[in-house]
């Protein structure tokens, strides 16, 4: 082979390799996550976990941590209320409708107790527990496994309020977050969702094919001073309470202080921010 061409190819290959890896190296070395243990921007949420006690310990609250409490006692025997909350979410967030389970997209949905609370016994469960469905949604964990596994920081924990959010423009659709989530809270857009949106809401972006999505605690509505759509839809029942669980004076903190609540899969150490009274 021609010697010069060979040399050129070698150089070009090496340069291309260096060029591709350069941004990664630059970003990694510049990242505060590696530089110090101070809490940094998104993606670094899991980095400071070493300082905290193990799974069951109580840590000192810091900053705002939004949480949601579902008082199932007020929803027993009233599946239509749950449907109303779900429909409100679907409408506000332009969630497409698919008839088959396979392509389904859901942010909040209802499911039997044994599916919602897989680590709880259903042996001799009460009539109410047996006969009712339970509302489930993203738990906006304080230690979210989905954030830990995402290779692009497309899903991240917002340090300002504890919401686990998605950047639909960065997501590469690897679905690793769906593997990591122990709550099945995430959905993937197997097809173009825009074809299946019943009623388009221009105030919230539609997603594109090939990205993952999930409940965002209505971050966009909170910014406007509104409450989460599911809460608002059934506000008269008082079944859903939303607020800062780190603020002892918030409504949710006061309910939490008074009532015994349970969480989904609490043994996994994800520290969910969604609570249930059953």
């Amino acid at each position, binding site marked *: 082979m021609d010697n010069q061409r060979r040399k050129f190819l070698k150089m070009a290959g090496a340069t291309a*390799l260096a060029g591709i890896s350069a941004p990664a190296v630059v*970003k990694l070395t510049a990242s505060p996550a590696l530089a110090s243990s101070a809490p940094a921007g998104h993606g670094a949420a899991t980095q400071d976990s070493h300082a905290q006690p193990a799974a069951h310990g109580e840590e000192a609250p810091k900053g705002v941590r939004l949480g949601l409490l579902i008082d199932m006692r007020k929803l027993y025997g009233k599946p239509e209320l749950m449907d109303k909350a779900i429909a409100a979410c679907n409408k506000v967030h332009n969630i497409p409708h698919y008839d088959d389970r396979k*392509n389904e997209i859901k942010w909040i949905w209802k499911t039997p107790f044994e599916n919602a609370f897989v680590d709880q016994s259903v042996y001799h469960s009460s009539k109410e527990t047996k006969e009712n469905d339970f509302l489930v949604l993203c738990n906006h964990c304080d230690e979210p496994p989905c954030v830990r*596994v995402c*290779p*692009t920081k497309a899903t991240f924990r917002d340090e300002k309020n504890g919401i686990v959010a998605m950047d639909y423009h960065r997501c590469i659709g*690897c679905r690793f977050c769906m*593997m990591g989530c122990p709550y099945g809270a995430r959905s993937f857009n197997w097809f173009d969702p825009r074809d299946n949106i019943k009623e388009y809401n221009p105030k919230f972006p539609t997603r594109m094919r090939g990205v993952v999505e999930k409940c965002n605690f209505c971050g966009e509505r909170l910014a406007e001073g509104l409450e989460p759509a599911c809460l608002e839809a059934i506000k008269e029942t008082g079944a859903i309470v939303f607020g800062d669980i780190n603020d002892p004076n918030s409504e949710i903190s006061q309910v939490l202080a008074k009532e015994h609540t349970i969480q989904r899969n609490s043994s*996994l150490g994800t520290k969910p921010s969604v609570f249930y009274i059953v």
Partner: protein
Amino acid sequence: MIEKALKGNSAYWMWLAFLSAFIAVGAICYLRQFFIGMGLTGMGRDLSWGLYISQFTFLVGVAAGGLMLVLPYYIHNYKVFGRITILGEFLAIAALIMCLMFIMADIGQPLRGLNMILHPTPNSMLFWDMVVLLGYLSLNLICGWVILTAEKKQVKPPKWVYIFVYISIPFAVSIHTVTAMLYCGLPGRHFWLSAITAPRFLASAFAAGPALIVIFCLIMKRVANFDAGKEAINKLTTIIMYAALINAFFVCLEFFVGWYSNIPGHKHALEYLFFGLEHGGHVYNNLVPFMWTSVFLCFGGLLLFGYMKIAKIDNDLLVGLGCLAIFIALWLDKGLGFVFGGLAVNPLNEVTEYYPTANEIGITLGIWAFGFALVTILYKVAIKVEQEVEGH
């Protein structure tokens, strides 16, 4: 050297044409998926990883399996592997390229793939997997090509290349360890949440990779007048036996932990894979025949090898059949069962069975065919160079 791949007999071109047909079908299937959506696959909300990722996982093992040639030759100076070490390195190159293709086939937004590099995320195991896979691919390209070039010029390989050879040894272990870590660090996925996942992956890799190399050697003996040597093949089958036995041992340990602890989450996936899982009045068992085929092929291959070694029988056909049996067994175990089994029961204790679609299988076969074509071309170059040097 690549020009060696451009000259061949009609069988060579027929074989490449045969593979090209599959590649073409795969490419068309991929275009359909690219333009219509991942919904064309059998994956869904509950079972959101499927055939692509399972093939990826298996092929990382095939790539790592080359270590079983590199390590004895370069570390223990085991000269018998001298002629075939390059085959291990070239197989790793092809397998890794297939891995990257499967990853690209699997992601929903392939055009955003570079986000992995533009937004590097060290807490994601997928990031590290990319690092080690690209690292191992580069190392094999460098080592394979430089050493083969030196051989062609009939000079000793430059000393600096040995640094890369030695680095490639821990890298081979790392690619499969990190690939196992994709799975074994996920809360709520009980079947995968096992510290033995990485060792098990390595054991099956060290059987599957060499098994494939033996098969290729036996084929090339017939069609390309390339003889790896009896002793080399013999040693390889011994390695395959040990590795496959260790893998089977690890699988048995998983059974023990599941059944003796009697924790349902630990049993579900194994029940589903081997006996059928009853749930809500329905028995889910679509993988049971595959898994038992795997068991029988694995032990059949082991018994065959054992018998041949004790009775001192030397028969290429039997060796090839044994290797094929073990390779298929491990493919069924890791290339199907491990991923699908771990996902059959979702985090909400709902059971979903996975059936790949025709489009998905088309893409998968296309990538496999591409890999075989790549191996054919690389091996053609390697053995032509060796034969030229030996003066055939």
